[in-house]
């Protein structure tokens, strides 16, 4: 035994946590010690705060300037930002399956639940900072003047909270789909179909007619509701009591279910 071997303290993690600390450390470093985190922050600021600034500027003088700008912001957040979550989620696992790095790290003392959870925690945290917290602070300062203090920090936090829950839904969905498929097409297709089916009137009409209960159990009503303007984000933005919390609870449960299925599927994956 060499001197350094004698000094080294072996890891003693057991069960599903085996390898979690190492893998999570690596995932967090990939977010914040490479360009990825800063690029995401910059993109979020440009897309969310930039579009809000443009809308506020173009509606200047109008009585509905703030209302129009915040509605446009919430629609952007509901329609386009899930794309980022899906892209990050699928890349996390599919990218590693394709490159062979997944097989490499899984040949080390790393349990598969820890592998999936490290991706989820790091991406979830990264998206929270880049796409919810940071732009949320920006939105507050952008609106505090024009809205004359109408949008309190709590209201903004409420809107960004449901926005983040929506992102988490698509992140966990993409992670789960990436454990089932080996190409990006189905992961992207299924996720986007789910993201856009609810808000798009030409698809939502038959859903409203034949399966309106889907709006209660999927995240569609969290941010956008073109038909009845009952999106929960608008209630939160205006400080009104929520008509229902079922979509919030259901979305959170979906996130847990998707994660559980991703772990189960990953545990059966062969390399």
């Amino acid at each position, binding site marked *: *035994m*060499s*001197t*350094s*071997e004698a*000094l*080294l*303290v*072996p*890891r*003693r993690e*057991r069960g599903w946590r*085996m*390898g979690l*600390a*190492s893998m999570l*450390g*690596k995932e967090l470093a*990939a977010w914040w010690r*490479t360009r990825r985190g800063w690029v995401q922050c910059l993109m979020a600021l440009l897309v969310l705060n930039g579009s809000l600034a443009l809308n506020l500027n173009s509606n200047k003088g109008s009585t509905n300037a703030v209302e129009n700008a915040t509605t446009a912001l919430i629609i952007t957040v509901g329609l386009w930002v899930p794309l980022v979550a899906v892209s990050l989620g699928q890349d996390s696992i599919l990218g590693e399956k394709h*490159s*062979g*790095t997944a*097989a*490499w790290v*899984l*040949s*080390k*003392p*790393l*349990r598969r639940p820890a592998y999936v959870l490290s991706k989820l925690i790091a991406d979830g945290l990264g998206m929270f900072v880049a796409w919810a917290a940071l732009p949320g602070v920006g939105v507050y300062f952008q609106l505090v003047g024009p809205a004359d203090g109408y949008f309190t920090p709590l209201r903004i936090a409420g809107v960004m909270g449901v926005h983040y829950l929506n992102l988490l839904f698509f992140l966990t969905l993409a992670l789960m789909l990436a454990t089932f498929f080996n190409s990006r097409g189905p992961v992207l297709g299924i996720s986007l179909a789910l993201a856009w089916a609810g808000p798009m009137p030409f698809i939502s009409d038959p859903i409203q007619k034949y399966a309106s209960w889907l709006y209660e159990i999927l995240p569609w009503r969290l941010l956008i509701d073109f038909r009845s303007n009952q999106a929960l984000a608008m209630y939160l933005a205006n400080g009104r009591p929520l008509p229902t919390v079922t979509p919030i609870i259901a979305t959170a449960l979906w996130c847990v279910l998707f994660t559980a299925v991703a772990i189960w599927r990953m545990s059966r994956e*062969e*390399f």
Partner: protein
Amino acid sequence: MSTSTSPVIETHGLAKTYKGVQALKPLDLQVQPNSICGFLGPNGAGKTTTIKLLLGLARPSGGAGKVFGLDIVKENDQIRRRVGYLSQDPRYYEYMTARQTLRFTASFFYEGPRAAIEQRVAETLDLVGLADKADRPVKGFSGGEKQRLGIAQAQVNYPDLLILDEPAASLDPQGRHDVLDVMERLRKHTTIFYSTHILDDVQRVSDTVIILNRGELVTQGPIEDVLAWGQTVSFTLTVKGDSMGVEARLRSQPWVTGLEEMSRNGRVSWRIQVSDREQAENELVSLALAGGGVTICEFGCRTQNLEDVFLNIVKESNHEYK
């Protein structure tokens, strides 16, 4: 470090089927501690499949396997704590440097202290000759450098068993030589189980050999025993001139059991298999010169090497398969 004398790797009827295709037929193999075991077979023989089964990267369709006496399915976590693995086509996170890659690998095995981990990383980089490239991103590494990094990451944890899948595949002759040197140095600390196509390397460093063909075990044992497999004495004879006459005289001898001819640059060479070595040594040259008009350019006894044995074993195994 393992001190037990029970096999490090032991499988009983270990089998794997992918979508109805049997990639590995029931396999019984044993690898003894502190040995270097060469795992040979043509492409698609089932070598990588066996390695993946041992590491828990694939699930067996049948049979059982043990590494350090631990079940490869139920106790794989404990196995992976004591194994170092280099895959056939090693891939790493390209944004990481070699040092970061080794630090990351070491973090799966050790929680500290930081200085000792750094020392181990530095030792490992030195061992594979990557110390001067330690802080360059892996993205810019050549195939050979990635292979060296692969060997480094496989043994950063002082493994009791090193599993190397084609460790010298993408290396130049110097790189191959270095890898074999590293393996020789590690022999006293660990058991090495490695697959390769480079039979010269196997003959140079291995104690035991396992040969697989079409997903089936063909032979296993100490390298001396395998080299003695179907051993026949053969001679090489190269002549210039009347080769037809020489060939006719050779074929007429009862102790000549086989004759393979190769012509090159106006010269004719034969590989002559004989049943009586002494007689051949005494008579082959005079027999060749007997008719006149012939010059002998080369003559010698040819020792069977691992490549001959491997090719013969695989040929025979394919013949039985048909």
